[in-house]
């Protein structure tokens, strides 16, 4: 949920686009429509990453290896983003009318989904112990359900945080707020990936 709020507050994940859309169409309902599209794209990106991992979690005896690998993967992406600091150019080719697609691609490209994996595996790890003797199929269904739940909670938190900012800017603060509230989170973002990955690895080892 914390990660969701964090993603939602980050202008790079799109809330200013909702403000722009509402202003362009001169009606406030466009604001919520655009936020919903952004949330949908983000949600799908979360699922696209979490679901494959939910299948992997059925391999209970490999649990710690999976968690370590996932953690290392997230750390690697963090380091990569820290070094390259470039945003993929294909994102700039998505037309502004296709916000859900853009949100999906932006979340994928920046590892927003991957950031959740160690958190998700941590949750599964706890429940995994209880379900240790259950059938693999049940475990998988359970973990897929958890993945869905994590993605929903995360996206709701993200959408809520983004909506609060977009709404504040649209209704009260005005466009000048945009340049005041926008901080370069590139480094923080990359470091967050590394920290989350490291915690994932550490909890798996301990």
């Amino acid at each position, binding site marked *: 949920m914390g990660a969701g709020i964090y993603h939602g507050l980050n202008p790079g994940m799109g809330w200013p686009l909702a*403000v722009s859309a509402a202003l362009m169409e001169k009606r406030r309902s466009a604001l919520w429509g655009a936020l919903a599209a952004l949330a949908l794209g983000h949600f799908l990106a979360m699922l696209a990453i979490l679901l494959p991992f939910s299948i992997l979690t059925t391999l209970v005896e490999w649990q710690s290896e999976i968690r370590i690998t996932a953690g290392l993967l997230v750390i690697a992406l963090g380091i990569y983003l820290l070094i390259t600091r470039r945003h993929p150019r294909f994102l*700039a080719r998505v037309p502004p009318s296709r916000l859900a697609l853009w949100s999906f691609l932006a979340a994928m490209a920046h590892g927003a989904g991957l950031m959740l994996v160690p958190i998700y595996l941590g949750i599964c790890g706890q429940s995994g112990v209880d379900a240790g003797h259950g059938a693999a199929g049940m475990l998988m269904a359970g973990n897929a359900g958890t993945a869905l739940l994590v993605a929903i909670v995360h996206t709701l938190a993200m959408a809520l945080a983004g909506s609060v900012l977009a709404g504040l800017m649209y209704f009260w603060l005005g466009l000048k707020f945009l340049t005041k509230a*926008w901080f370069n989170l590139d480094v923080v973002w990359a470091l967050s990936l590394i920290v989350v990955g490291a915690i994932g690895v550490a909890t798996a080892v301990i």
Partner: protein
Amino acid sequence: MNIKPDPTFHASAKLAMEAPVEKLAFTLMLSPDGTQPDGLAVVDVDPKSKTYGQIVHSLFMPNTGDEFHHFGWNACSSALSPLTGHAFLERRYLIIPGIRSSRIYIIDVKEPLKAKIHKIIEPEELMAKTGYSRPHTIHCGPEGIYVSTLGGGGKDGTDGPPGIFIMDCETFEILGRYEMDRGVQDKQYDFWWNLPRNYMVSSEWGLPPQFENGIVAEDLLSNKYGHSIHFWDLRARKNMQTIDLGENHQMALEIRPAHDPAKEYGFCGVVVDTTNLQGSIFTWWRDDDGTWQARKVITIDPVPADPDDLPPLLKGFSAVPPLVTDIDLSLDDKYLYVACWGLGEMHQYDVSDPMNPTLAGKVELGGIVANHKPPNGKDFAYGPQMVEVSRDGRRVYWTNSLYSTWDDQFYPGDEGGQMVMADVGENGGLTLNKDFYVDFPKGYRSHQIRLEGGDCSTDSFCYPNV
């Protein structure tokens, strides 16, 4: 990379108008005969400064024969769209192409009085990576820096059509051609866009053999210069529609979309109508069904003249054509400035109703026959040409040279580079400022002006005015 967006980036045109006013201007200097290197002049435009109206720094290039013309910034307010991912670029570098040499200079003006060359892209590299030559208009946008070109491949630039190419906005590497489907577009001049609405508009001058050695009268009279404007799906890089303004409307040059992206219209200036020598402005707009339209909304008549007072090119016509060579739109989308380079006039039109512009102000300066002098009695060669408007819309700057070989044809014997400024009245009206007059060094002419922190022909806004 900044921690916060560059303070000169503004979400909307309205916010840009409220920003602090410019204190410096950057003006290009060109050596018309290529005997001296071209340069960038930094001009003090702060009335409170002791060096007001003076060139406070000049940077000259290490080559000759570039012929500087238009230029632009590496980054502007367009960076404030989250779609692009470059919100933290600095407005720091000027991209200056040589229209004759096809060489491109990247100039670091972080400290304007210590402006220095950051990178040079040689013509061979441009040609190898794009097949284009004669780079011209610069705009920063979604995929980086977009540069229009006037020539294709080969020595005379006629091997293949000219077009637009894209440069990386951080490394200044040339990434390649913009167009994926150019349709019928075979000439190129200016371009601009509406970023949230995802369209681009481009225009046409002529191919290099039609301008490099001077205007080709036979081509003009047989309507062989450009007379179409093209509408593109900006991000799909596809020509959606081409509007032919009519072949008599020769040289459809500057494209000026409304700065407020909620408005889906803009203007295009046409140099000369070959049936009557008029200059004209077209308004283009998008209909509800998505198709584009254009209509002539301003005409400026030629002025009869004694053939003895006219250059050889114009003697047969016994008239001075207005020659609408540059236009610029104030950030509030209210006033359109129209340079009549032949007449020696700068017009100010109220375009609040873009379909029914009205003349709101006028300054007379220079001119083929009129030859008006500035208030200080000094020279003003040629006529008002490249025009730039301050962000707040209160000051209008302009220089006088059109293009080296064309200056010599329309104003034989004239020489010099000057920059002047006019004040805009509270309710319109245009008055030449008596205190601001820049005379460029001997042997130099002057072309485009860029104002510190952005101006009315650089920044593209991603959010509407509210």
